[in-house]
Structures are given as structure tokens and as C-alpha cells.
């Protein structure tokens, strides 16, 4: 079943057509890769899917619900969380506090006004911190963390809400190889154990191809092709699209 469906979405900024009738589906329980040259509209697609920007036309569905005009918090409450290309955490909150921001909407409406540091909440956040390996820094201000740690924290922030789907925007960008390995492991583990669906925008081809069950390629605001990593890799249209950028990267 398709968890996320994007249908004929267009989005323009002034004269630049970031999305030009983009249609795409992401299957539930799969790790989906989304690649494409710079400026092909990947981040814009994320923005449109998660409610940060409104599509000019077309529609977006999450598990059958139309979210084309939804706000980010509504999309999130449907179980779709995302990270950003440039990490966005709450620098003046501690690591633990960062985590609990996302667990706001658990429980009834009054739960919002309950203590965030209740014992059960803390058990949950410790689980998550242990999972990404940040427990040691729990009481640290998030702004003091290194970039890679912040990436992990951003990941953990979404994870704590047990989303159905996680949209990761360049999780590997600026992260050292060993940490990247760690991150890949976590994604895999989460996917296997909790059945979380992933959509990963990434330029690191090795990372994408090694991790993803399915890869979609974007070019000039459209979906060029989609399929198993192997098929995509050998698709001539993809090679064509990447021509002039870095062919070896793709073909490797």
C-alpha cells in the first residue's frame, strides 16, 4: 500500500519551476530513496509534502488523507515527520527537552499541559537517546552539540513520536563516515523493528543505494523514474539527467 502519494504537483518560485507536475508514490514499510541533481526539486517536494509550502496545483495524500492544504503540524499528526537539509534543532533547549517537543500530541488534549519530565516520558526519551547514542549528552544544550550529533538529535526528535513515515533530507550531508554508518544502521533497525517508512533525499549514492529498497529519481521538477536501486542505476535517462554533473557517482 502506498503511504505517501504525490500527484501532478507543481510549484513555482517566480520564474523558476521547482516542481513541474511531479507524481510519485512511496510504499509503506519501505526505505525509499529520492535522488536527483541539484535544483531538481527534491527539497521543494519535501516542503510540499510536509505542509511547509503549498503546491500551486496537484495533490498530496498521506495514507489516503488529502494533505495538499494541510499545515506542517497537521501532516505531522498524521504520522509524517521530516528532517532538514540544514539541521534544525532547538539550540537553547537541552537534548532531552528537544525530544519531548515532538511528543506533545500523545494522549488527550490536556496531556499537553502535563509534565514533560514525568517518569514514563523519561523512560521513552532514554530509550530513544540510547537508540541514537546521545544519552551521555542528555542534559546538554542542543546548540552545543556537534553538527553530526545534531543530525542524530533531529532524527531522534522525530522518532520519539513513532511516526509512520520519516522524511530525511540529506541525512548524510556533513556527517563523518563512521557516524553515517551508525545512522544507516539506525534507519535499518527502525524500519525492520517498527516498520517505519523512510523517504531519504541524499547525494551520497553509496549510502542511498546500499540502504534503500526503492529509489526515485527527480529531474527538473519531475519524477524521471523509480524502481529498485539496480534498475535505476542503469537507467539511461538517469545517466542523461546526471550528465554534466557527476556520472561516475551515479554509475558507481
Amino acid at each position: 500500500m502506498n503511504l505517501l502519494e504525490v500527484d501532478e504537483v507543481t510549484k513555482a518560485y517566480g520564474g523558476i519551476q521547482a516542481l513541474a507536475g511531479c507524481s510519485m508514490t512511496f510504499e509503506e514499510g519501505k526505505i525509499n530513496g529520492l535522488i536527483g541533481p541539484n535544483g531538481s526539486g527534491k527539497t521543494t517536494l519535501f516542503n510540499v509534502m510536509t505542509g511547509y509550502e503549498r503546491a500551486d496545483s496537484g495533490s498530496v495524500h498521506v495514507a489516503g488523507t488529502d494533505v495538499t492544504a494541510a499545515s506542517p503540524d497537521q501532516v505531522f499528526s498524521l504520522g509524517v515527520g521530516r528532517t532538514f537539509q540544514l539541521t534544525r534543532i532547538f539550540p537553547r533547549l537541552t537534548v532531552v527537552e528537544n525530544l519531548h517537543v515532538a511528543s506533545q500530541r500523545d494522549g488527550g488534549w490536556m496531556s499537553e499541559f502535563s509534565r514533560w519530565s514525568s517518569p514514563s516520558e523519561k523512560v521513552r526519551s532514554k530509550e530513544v537517546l540510547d537508540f541514537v547514542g546521545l544519552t551521555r549528552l542528555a542534559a546538554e544544550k542542543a546548540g552545543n552539540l556537534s553538527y553530526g550529533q545534531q543530525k542524530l538529535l533531529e532524527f531522534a526528535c522525530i522518532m520519539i513520536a513513532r511516526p509512520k513515515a520519516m522524511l530525511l533530507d540529506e541525512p548524510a550531508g556533513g556527517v563523518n563516515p563512521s557516524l553515517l554508518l551508525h545512522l544507516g544502521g539506525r534507519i535499518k533497525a527502525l524500519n525492520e523493528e517498527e516498520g517505519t517508512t523512510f523517504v531519504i533525499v541524499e547525494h551520497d549514492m553509496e549510502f542511498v543505494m546500499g540502504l534503500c529498497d526503492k529509489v526515485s529519481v527527480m529531474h527538473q521538477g519531475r519524477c524521471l523514474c523509480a524502481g529498485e536501486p539496480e534498475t535505476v542505476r542503469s537507467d539511461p535517462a538517469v545517466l542523461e539527467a546526471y550528465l554534466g554533473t557527476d556520472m561516475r557517482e551515479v554509475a558507481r
Partner: protein
Amino acid sequence: MTTLHAGTAPAELLRPVEAERAFRDPFEPSKRSRATAWVALFALLAAFPIVFSNPAVTSIGVFTMMFLVAAIGWNIFSGYSGYVSIGHAVYYGFGQYAVALLIEHWHVTPGASELAIIPLGGIVAAAVAVPVGLILLRVRKHTFIVLTIAAMFIFQLLAFNFAGFTGGSAGTNVVSPPWTGTVFNLPFYYIGLGAAILALLVSWGIRRSKYGLGLLAIRDDEDRAKGLGIRVTRAKLIAYVASAFFVGIAGGLYATFVGAVYPQFAFDPTYDLAIAVMVFVGGLGTLPGPVLGALVLAPIQQYFYIQFGASTLYLIIYGILFIVILLTLPAGVVPSISDRYRSWMASRQRRREEATPTVGGAMPVTVPAGPVGIDDGGAR
């Protein structure tokens, strides 16, 4: 509960106690000592007008309480959400006018029954804050600052314009309770103190709730907070209305205490700057910050008038003092002191650890990593 393969400890072993321990800040004073400090502070404040019973001193005390309530209230919205309002005088004004006009229209007998109207000032202010907040909170931080000033001027001008209702420039009177000078200030002082305690409890409740965390998240990155499921407009509005309520109470207190309500002093353009200065000096977005700021600066300001008021020297002194504090303690006195204390404690602990080289220390180490964190240890 889901079973996750945690980095080190198996999930079965996780117990609340352990989680609690993992997150504890070794330098954090215990709950009991914090509670004691607060109780002691308020006991002191409660005893103040009895010890220093001179009416001039208690009069400063009453105005300080008004600022205290307003500063704590203001901080609930502006401190936590990062949306700095310099137009909360709108609610100060509505509190004043609501109380003054209600007393007039209901023909309340001068005396204790007038004091019973004060909470209505807060309620009216909160009610006004809902539509005003819905309009103002559509814009982001920089614009918001200016928009709040504009809103304040609009209401000030309206108070002038609708003279039939508000008394226009002549203002509105509240007949003072017929108490003698020696005791007159005390009821106002204690109502103010009570309201301040209530405000503080609300502020504390918000700070420790998930909701409060959401506000702090909005302060740091509103869009991101939205993406993590926080209904930002609703969250901001609730805080805005709560803070308007307390500022309205301060206004109601003012109306009954001073007895004269004028448009330009009810909707006073410099009121919020005074409050903002107090909160910033104390520590924006912290629980004790506004308390400290108001308790120190409000009396100082009145005292300066009396002491240096013969010329505008007091303006210069106040201005320079404020600049110095902002530049040397940019986060405010409370966070700066606490940071210094913390780093001092840390260095002390480090020295102790160097003396007795044991692994572990006060914190359970779950990740065998250096001080910089797992960037280096991520490859486990």
C-alpha cells in the same frame, strides 16, 4: 513498550529511576532547596510591609508588586515564546478601564468590595487578548514587535476618542477606599503578592509542561516546531491570553490603588519597555528572571526619581546601568550567575576527579565517548 536495541543497556533493564538518573544535572540544586528558597523569598516579601511599615515604602512596595505580576505574566508569553511584545500596555489599560468602569457602573461601595473587582480586570484583558492576539500573532517576530506598539496606540487613541464611555482625556476616577494612610497600602500589597504567586505558579506549571516546551521550541525555531506537531498559533495564543490576564490584574490593581485612569498612562508606550528591561535584566524566559528583575528594578526606578529626580540625571544613570548589564550579562542576571556557578562547580569537580581518578563520576556514562560526544564514538 517497544523494544529497541539501545546503544548499550538492554531495554528490559530500563526503569524510571534509571532514566531519571541519566538525565539528572549533577549541579542542579535539589527540589527541596529550591522550594525552600522560594518559600523563604515569599515569606520575606510577605513580612516586608510589616517590617517596613512606612506608607511611602509600602507604596513603592505596591507598585513593585504590580510590576512583579506584570513581569511574570509578560514573561509567560514573551519570555517563553520569544515573541517580544512591547504592547502589553493594551492589557494594562484594559485592566484599568475595566475595573474603574465596572466599579462606577455597578456603584460599588468604596472599600473592600472594590478590591473584589480587580480579578475582573484580568478577565476582561484576557477576553480582549483573544481577538487581538489572533490578529497580531499572524506576523513573525520583528514585525510583531512594531505591531504591538501600533496596537497599543490604537487603543490609547480609542480611549481618547470614545470619551462618552471612557471619560476621554479627563479619564475615569475610582473612589478610594476610606482607609487610613497607615493601613491603606497593605491590602493592595497583599493582593499584588497573591497575584504574583498565582502568576508564578502558572509560569512554573507552563515551564514544566509539554506545552511550555512547545513554547520554548517556538522561540528557537517556529517552523520546525510546527513540523513537530505543535499547533503554534494555538500555543502562542494561549500564552498570550494568560500573560494578558496577569497584566490586566496589574492594571486593575493600579486603577483601585491610584484611583485615576487616563488614556496616556493606561496605554503607556513606555510601560512595556520598563517590563522588558526588568525581565531581560533578570533573565528572559526563566522562571526567577522576572521576579528578580521586578523586585530590584521597580523599587530602584521609584527610588531614583526621589533621589536624583531633581534633574534628569536619573535617566542617564538608569540608561547607563541598563546598558552595562545588557553588555556584561547579555542573558540576564539569572542565567549568567547560574552559568558561572555551574562552570565553577564543574571545574571543582574536575579537580576532584583528577585527584581521585575513578571512571564514572556523578553521571552514568552510557556511551564510552570523550567529552566532545559521540562524533568520535559513533563507529562502535
